[in-house]
């Protein structure tokens, strides 16, 4: 039986925006096993990004339990969460979020700056990660010297350089053309199938979801039963 990587019980997130009370997530129970590639789908405002952010400990739930990689995230301090995320989680953003003044290899090296590796070891790891994503010849390029697809591949390299147990991707193909998007999805699929990485990907693109091994749908903050598409898609 696979290990459970992510487990939530009654996970709820509410917040107040101006004077409006918003239920971003309502009583979400989800269980994701090691080695799965799960796509979270749903229309805008369905809570999929909120769920991803809670899994990444970028936000704290209002109610409910959440255990990720065996860790109860509610019990960790800010500093402990930062260390945990650096060691165990890789995050891929929709807008790549590369640091503009750092080169590709320096961007990928960033998470390793928090480890005890020497400079040489960090650069070796970073260049290996960049070669893995097919950018071995772009080490010294700044983000503005790369295409969108290349930038996202640098971001993927940055996400995997610490060899994390869990990769979280928030609309990783949202800002890419079709060809670049395909490259990114193939890469993610490779990371899952060949390297056994557990991946949770938020997407609204059904084509992207086809690369996942499992698809879960959210609608208006609620997680739909497995196998049930969202109401808006089924109509």
């Amino acid at each position, binding site marked *: 039986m696979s290990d459970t990587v992510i487990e939530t019980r009654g996970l709820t997130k509410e917040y107040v925006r101006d004077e409006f009370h918003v239920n971003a997530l309502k009583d979400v129970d989800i269980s994701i096993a090691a080695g799965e590639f799960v796509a979270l789908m749903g229309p805008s405002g369905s809570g999929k990004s909120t769920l991803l952010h809670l899994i990444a400990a970028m936000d704290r739930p209002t109610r409910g339990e959440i255990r990720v990689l065996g860790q109860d995230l509610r019990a960790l301090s800010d500093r402990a969460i930062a260390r945990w995320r650096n060691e165990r989680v890789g995050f891929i953003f929709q807008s790549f*979020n590369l640091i503009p003044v750092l080169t590709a290899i320096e961007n990928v090296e960033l998470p390793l700056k928090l480890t005890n590796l020497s400079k040489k070891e960090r650069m070796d790891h970073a260049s290996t990660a960049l070669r893995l994503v097919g950018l071995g010849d772009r080490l010294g390029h700044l983000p503005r010297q790369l295409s969108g697809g290349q930038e996202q591949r640098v971001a993927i390299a940055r996400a995997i350089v610490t060899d994390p147990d869990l990769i979280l991707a928030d609309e990783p193909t949202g800002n890419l053309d079709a060809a670049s998007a395909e490259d990114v999805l193939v890469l993610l699929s490779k990371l899952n199938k060949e390297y056994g990485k557990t991946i949770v990907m938020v997407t609204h693109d059904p084509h992207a979801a086809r690369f996942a091994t499992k698809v879960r749908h959210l609608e208006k903050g609620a997680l739909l039963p497995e196998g049930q598409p969202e109401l808006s898609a089924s109509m």
Partner: protein
Amino acid sequence: MAIPIAYNLRNLIVRKTTTVMTALGIGLTVAVLVADLALVNGLRQAFRSTGNPMHVLVLRKGGTAELSSAMSRTVYQDLKTNPGIARDSSGQPMASLEMVAVISLTGIDSPHGMNVSLRGLDPMGKRLRDVPILYGRWYQSGRREIVVGRSVALRYPQAQLGKQIRFGKGMWDVVGVMDAGPSAFNSEIWGDLNQIASDFNRQDTASSVLARALDAAAVPALVNSLNDDPRLNVTAMREQIYYDNQTNAGAPLQILGMFVSIVMAVGSSFAAMNTMFAAVSRRAMEIGTLRVLGFSRFSILTSFFFESLLLAGIGGLLGCLLALPLNGMTTGVGSFTTFSEIAFNFRVTPAVMIPGVVFALILGAVGGLLPARSAARQEILVALREG
């Protein structure tokens, strides 16, 4: 520091215009401070270079300044027999009776007139001070001839070699220009004691006596001996101490300069703060990303704080460069002791520039703390959304 320094340095380079403007603002503040410190440093150097460690200056009892001291020739005759005073090869005591007065000269910076020290020395006085002549020759005894210090010749056109100056009872010929190095003697005019005393109707009373001790170690004993001699009724002190005490002429300048610098610093630190707040706002997405990657709030704070220090450090160095051309420039200040002008050079030295750079860093620290704190306190999702 976990976040690479290259991140901060390159961000300053990428925003060249903002960086230059802010650094320039800080630099101007530092330049004012360094200029002020250089001025005071030059003044102190001038006084500290004046005075021989083997010399004792003797004034009337309780006197603090040569100008207000009255030394009779009779006292001088008794004083110079003190066994603690060195003798030259012919057995003459190495003690000089001198008269100090002030005359008014019009100059480049003082069209309405400025007091300049006039010193009448006997031949031993010239030997004791051993100041070289730069142009012309020494004055001759019994003649209405004077030698001016190099700073006097520079600042007062009427006191240049070959010219004449009117003071006392008539005209005096400038026959030489002396170079006393950085010392205060460069701000004086020297002439024959008897001729000058006659012009000022002070044939019986001079101002002071300068005496050389047997050696440097014997100076304290000579000072005590002269002070304790009831016949003389004088106040003796090391010549160096007499001039050291005059460095208080720089105190008002120093206070004024510091005040102006602090006022400017308030403005400059707000400029630095504004620049850093803008940087934090512009780089919100980067801050959020760094937090997601695992960098702590403290790392963010130290990174932005360091960037502010870097910016201020650049400003500090710029300020030192702006002040550097002042080095060696001559200026003058009125002394409350001699009631005359002391000319001296600005001295921009590392001892003056280092406090300037430190001042800039303090300014950067004050200006950078709040923005750095703001960067560190941002919540991840808010930061990512703002980017």
